[in-house]
Each structure stands twice: as structure tokens, then as C-alpha cells.
């Protein structure tokens, strides 16, 4: 059927050569770590599918509504229509809760897959020339995915989402000069306004997904055109790519990975509760939750907000608010560093050559050191973001934990980075031990006289 479609297409568009050479016989090198980005792709597909389904039931409105439904604890409570429609979706619509929880889990796994994919790209040096474009697109996708997830769980108008939005508004307000304008621009006035639900809905279901889908398309097109990188090995050079053909081997494998990803997401969505909005209750501006925990990919920002030192700066009768440093400057500096890393490494190593063969991580100890430093810093912030839970579990006061994390966030990352650097250097040295001193293999051949001669020039 599809074979005939290809013929039909070729009679109308000269596509035969492209389809055969660039798609069906496209060569994809085999390594498990090359599949991480695909998991992210399949999560995105799951998000679009479940999200489309959810869209039929969600009513983005801040209009007040007195709840009358199957959930007794909220009987007669004033809630927004957005929140009411989510309660209805979760508790009354068949498959509703499964779809909502799967959507939420798909987002959590999406972000995890993007970050794992990015670590693979970083530590193997896949971002080097000629792939800087995809590094930029990929980093942008990470930022957009984080914002898209935040918009998503902020839409429900439950208590957690409302408090999260209030923090987001305060962070916008904290930007010098333009902060208040930006906050008013986003919400249409002083938060909270009656337009919050409509604006979040438009951003979350239309604008962000469209941009993300477009960038993913561009990202994949670049992979097709440039062809995938490969680890060094027999027959593999900077000028070729060795691996399975897209059709049928790789297509089947990738399809299996996609189906397996969906299986895990639906298992999580069905069996593991996530974001129980009926337990949080509706958002009322004077209420709050404790412990307060955002989705995991925002935990590092909450951690930074919790650790930062309590000082507003005053400049000429104006204020640079304290949250600016942990929630605006720090993430901007961090992502700026990530965006620029391909060029920073070029300056550090002086290597601007084209690289189609990947490094094993140990081959670049400096890169390992930098990567481990940054990751340790972010992980410590992430841990600090749940210090209220740790305080409950470990019976240490929150104040003490904050102090420990403040010191740790500065002291531990460089130490961890240095250890990473040393381990990589050591592994590299060992991997190359004997590279030059290995004694040549000598093959002895029995000669006619019964003695032995060395066989000359035989390749091993």
C-alpha cells in the first residue's frame, strides 16, 4: 500500500531519490544512548494526543461557580469554572483521570528525557562543529518545555497552581525597570485578573506547542541532513556513518521504543497519583499549602529562591528586588553558559574542526569537570527545593537545612567537578596505556626445512 503510494507520489513530485536515499536507506548508528532524544519525542507525541483529548473537556474561565458534584468535601464551595471542569474531567468523565495523569506524567518524563539526552550530547561532545545549531535549538526546547509545563499545571486554578502563578508574577515583578510592565502585560493587570485562565490556555495549548513542534521538526531535519554522529570503531570515520538502515530495521526498533514509552506513561498515569487537584482545593488568594512543591523540573528554581540571601538593593530610589538574583539572573546566566558552551570549549581547546566521531566522556576531562560542576550545582538547588519535606523526615529545622544547602551550593560543585576531572583523566590514561608500547605480534611460519621463519608484513 505504502509502496504504491510512494510510486504515486513520485509520478507527481520527483521524490523517489530523496525517499529512498535520505529516508528509507538513511543510516542510523546503533547505541542505546542515541535513543534518549527519541523518548523525549515520543513523550511529546503522547502530550499532544492526551492534551488534545483533555482540551475537549477543559473550560478556561475564572468565572465563579458553586461546586455541586460527586466530590463531597467541595460541595457548595465557590470555585472557578476552570477548576470545576478539571474536577469533572478527573472524577466523572470516563478515562478522564487516566488521561489527565498520563498527560502530567508525560510532561515529567519529557523533561527528564530532554535533560538526559542533553547530558549525552554534552559529555560525548556531539554539540561540536557542525552541530552547534542543534545545540541551540535543543537548549531552547528545554527552556520552552519547562515553561510549557509550568503553564500547564498553572491552568488548573487549584491551590498549588495559583500559588505557583503568584510566585511567577513576583519573579516577573523582580526584573529591574520592566518588571511591573511585564507582569501587567502577562496578566492584563495586577495579579490575579479575570483573564488568567484564558491567557494561560492560549499559551499552553496553542502558542507554546506550535513553537515546540516547529523546533522539534527543525531539530530532526538537521539530524537527517547532517546524519547522526557515531562512536569511533571499526570502519567508522569522520566521513561516513555506519549503522542500521531506517527501513525496516531502525523504524521497527524506534516504533517499539515509542510503544514502550507509551506503555510506561499509561502505567504511571493509571497507577501513580499525580497532581491531585481535588485534595489541594481551589485557589483562593489567601490560602496556601505546606509543604509547597512544584513539578520536579522547577524544583531548582524554588530551591534557589529559598537559599538566596534576603537583601533588596536600592538604586537611586528604585529597588532591585531580592528574587531577581536567584530566579532571573541565576537561570539566565546558567542557560547563557549552556548556550555558549560550544564556543567556550572552542576557545579553551582551540579545536574548531568538524567532528562526526564522538568522544567517550573520559576523552575530555575538562568537559567532564565543567559538566559535573554545573549538574551538581543544579542538583543541590533541586534538593534545597524540597527542604521542607526533608526537614519533616529528618527532624532538622528548615533554617539549619537552608544554611547547610547555602554552603553546599558554593563548596560542593567545584569539588565534585574536580573529582570528575580527575576520574576522567585517570580513565583516559588507562584506556591508552600500551597504545604505543604494545609489542608487535610476530607470526611464525614453519618452513620447508622444518625450521621457523618470521612471516613478514601480515596485518593483524
Amino acid at each position, binding site marked *: 500500500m505504502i509502496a504504491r503510494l510512494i510510486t504515486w507520489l513520485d509520478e507527481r513530485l520527483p521524490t523517489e531519490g530523496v525517499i529512498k536515499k535520505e529516508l528509507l*536507506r538513511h543510516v542510523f548508528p546503533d547505541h542505546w544512548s542515541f535513543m534518549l532524544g527519541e523518548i523525549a519525542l515520543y513523550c511529546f507525541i503522547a502530550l499532544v494526543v492526551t492534551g488534545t483529548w483533555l482540551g475537549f473537556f477543559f473550560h478556561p474561565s475564572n468565572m465563579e461557580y458553586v461546586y455541586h458534584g460527586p466530590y463531597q468535601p467541595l460541595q457548595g464551595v465557590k470555585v472557578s469554572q476552570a477548576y470545576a471542569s478539571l474536577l469533572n474531567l478527573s472524577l466523572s468523565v*470516563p478515562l478522564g483521570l*487516566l488521561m489527565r*495523569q*498520563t498527560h502530567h506524567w508525560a510532561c515529567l518524563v519529557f523533561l527528564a528525557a530532554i535533560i538526559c539526552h542533553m547530558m549525552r550530547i554534552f559529555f560525548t561532545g556531539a554539540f561540536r562543529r557542525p552541530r552547534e545549531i542543534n545545540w541551540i535549538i535543543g537548549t531552547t526546547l528545554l527552556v520552552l518545555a519547562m515553561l510549557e509545563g509550568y503553564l500547564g499545571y498553572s491552568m488548573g486554578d487549584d491551590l498549588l497552581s495559583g*500559588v505557583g502563578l*503568584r*510566585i511567577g*508574577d*513576583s519573579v516577573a*515583578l*523582580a*526584573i529591574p525597570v520592566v518588571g*511591573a*510592565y511585564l*507582569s501587567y*502585560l502577562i496578566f492584563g*493587570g*495586577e*495579579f490575579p485578573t479575570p483573564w488568567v485562565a484564558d491567557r494561560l490556555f492560549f499559551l499552553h495549548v496553542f502558542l507554546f506547542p506550535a513553537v515546540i513542534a516547529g523546533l522539534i521538526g527543525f531539530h530532526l531535519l538537521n539530524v537527517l541532513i*547532517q546524519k547522526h554522529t557515531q562512536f569511533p570503531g571499526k*570502519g567508522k570515520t569522520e*566521513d561516513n*556513518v*555506519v*549503522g*542500521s*538502515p531506517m527501513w525496516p530495521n531502525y523504524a*521497527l526498533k524506534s*516504533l*517499539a521504543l515509542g*510503544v*514502550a514509552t507509551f*506503555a*510506561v506513561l*499509561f502505567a504511571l*498515569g*493509571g*497507577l501513580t497519583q499525580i497532581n491531585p487537584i481535588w485534595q489541594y482545593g481551589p485557589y*483562593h*488568594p*489567601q*490560602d*496556601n499549602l*505546606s*509543604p509547597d512543591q512544584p513539578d520536579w523540573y522547577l524544583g531548582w528554581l524554588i530551591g534557589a*529562591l*529559598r537559599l*538566596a*540571601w*534576603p537583601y*533588596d538593593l536600592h538604586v537611586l530610589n*528604585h*529597588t532591585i528586588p*531580592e*528574587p531577581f538574583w*536567584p530566579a532571573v539572573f541565576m537561570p539566565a546566566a546558567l542557560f547563557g553558559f549552556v548556550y555558549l558552551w560550544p564556543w567556550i570549549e572552542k576557545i579553551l581547546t582551540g579545536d574548531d574542526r*568538524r567532528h562526526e566521531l564522538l568522544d567517550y566522556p573520559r576523552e575530555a576531562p575538562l568537559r567532564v569537570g565543567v559538566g559535573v560542576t554545573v549538574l551538581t550545582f543544579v542538583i543541590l538547588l533541586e534538593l534545597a527545593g524540597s527542604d*521542607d519535606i526533608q526537614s519533616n523526615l529528618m527532624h532538622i529545622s528548615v*533554617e539549619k537545612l537552608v544554611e547547610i544547602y547555602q554552603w553546599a551550593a558554593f563548596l560542593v560543585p567545584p569539588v565534585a567537578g574536580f573529582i570528575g576531572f580527575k576520574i576522567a583523566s585517570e580513565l583516559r590514561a588507562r584506556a591508552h596505556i600500551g597504545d604505543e608500547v604494545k609489542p608487535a605480534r610476530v607470526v611464525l611460519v614453519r618452513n620447508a626445512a622444518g625450521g621457523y621463519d618470521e612471516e613478514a608484513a601480515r596485518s593483524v
Partner: protein
Amino acid sequence: MSDSPKHKRQNRAIGATLILSIVGAAVFIATDIYNAGPQAEGASIAVSLGALAIALIAWSKQILPQTQLVSERPPLPAPHSGPDSASETFAEGEREVVSRRGLTGLLAAAVGTLGVAAIFPVRSLGPMIDSLFHTRWSPGARVVDGDGVPVHRGSLGVKSMMTVFPEGYTDSQDSQTLLIRTPPGTVPLPPDRANWAPDGYIAFSKVCTHAGCPVALFRATDLLLMCPCHQSIFDVLQLAARISGPAARPLPQLPLEIDADGFLHAQSDYHEAIGPSFWERPG
């Protein structure tokens, strides 16, 4: 060839997995019809998808020939198609466009000025920013609880707390206020606030000065207020000064008075902008 024992074994294994997938999907349909709940729905669809994934992996590993192909990479940069490269073609056009130097400068100035002009519509938001400095509290506004019930001198026990609003504005985010009844004489009020806390009733903005969360936790034993978002702690007995956490300022105090009938009123709005800091806020 398809009769070899190895093939039969593969067919049996992959076939069984696919049948499991079919059964899983059928169970999913049944769970949906009988509304069996998210656990049964999720588990059955996951089993169906998981079995399908395993079958596909086995198919690709066992049935398909393991072909290894080599393909050449495209040279970079692409070989030129004509006499001039794209960048040369562009540079040539650019030279033609900017051949009149004086005019080019003027063109840049025009576009630049237009760009600056385009920023100015944002200024129409400007006057509204004034609202960040005000809440719904006004001189004489009656203090009510979240349900709109007026607060009386007898409403609160000593060392207890409630959230209050100005009458008519119980949904006003920036007006939410913590009303605490302190033991008389325990809060050292500065001279300019001497009459702000009649009968030990003292009121502070509930909007955290750090990131705007409601300061929702209250510990009656030592009269501490805590914001659960980022754990700033404020001490009522020190006029809600921050004693721990990232907030940079104390919670602003609302001046209160009690009328002849014993009902609480605000003397005025807050004397400073409440909530998180922002650029226009004077130090």
C-alpha cells in the same frame, strides 16, 4: 525455511506476546465500559502497549536481517553550484543596496527611531502600575473575615490569628491581612505607630514580601508567621520583622482602630506598597 525449529520457536514467542497485547487492549475496552477506575484502565493499556513493544523489538532483532550499511556524509560547506557562493551573492547585493552612504545612514536612523517608537505603546500600561502601591483598605474600612462577617473586639482569643479583608473586598488578593491578637503591651510599637494596635489587635499584610505567597502558617506559642513557599519567618512581637528566610522586608503593618461598638476598622490603607518588591518601589 519457515519450518525450522528456530523459526517455530520465534513464531510462538512473538505470537504469544502479540496475543497478550490483544488481550490487554480487550481488557482496557472492558474497564472503560464498566468504569473500572484509572488503575485497571492504566494497567491494561500499559500491558497491551508493553507487549506490543516487546513483540516489535523481538521482530526487529530476530526476524529482520541485521543489515549494516555505510553511507557517506555530505561535505561541508556544500560545493558551490555556480561561480559565486551564496555569501558572495548576498554581499554583492548588499554593496548595491548601500552604495549611497549618506542615505544608508539616514535609513538606519529612520528604522531605529521607528523601533524606539514601537516600544512606547507598552507605556500605556504605565499609570496602572500605581495600583501596586495601593490595596482596597481605606480610612474607616470595616474589618471583616473571609465570609464578610465584621470582626468584633471579642472575635479573637489572645494569641490567635485570622485572615481579614476590608468590607466588600473579600476576594481582593492584595488586601488579605493577618489579624493577630497579642497579649496587651507585648509588641513594642514605635512612636509613629503607637495607636495602630488597639487592645493588642495587630494587623500585617498576608502577602509575603519575598515572592507574594500568602503567609499562611502561624505558630501561636511564640507568635511566629511562616510562608510555606520559601520559608521566610516573621516575628509578630518584632513588628513582623524577618527572622529567617529570603524575604528582604518585614510584613507591612495596617493601622487599626476600634469603634464605640467594639468593631475593628482600618485607620487608612497600608503606608507602603505591600507584597514583593519591584523596581518602582522606593527604598
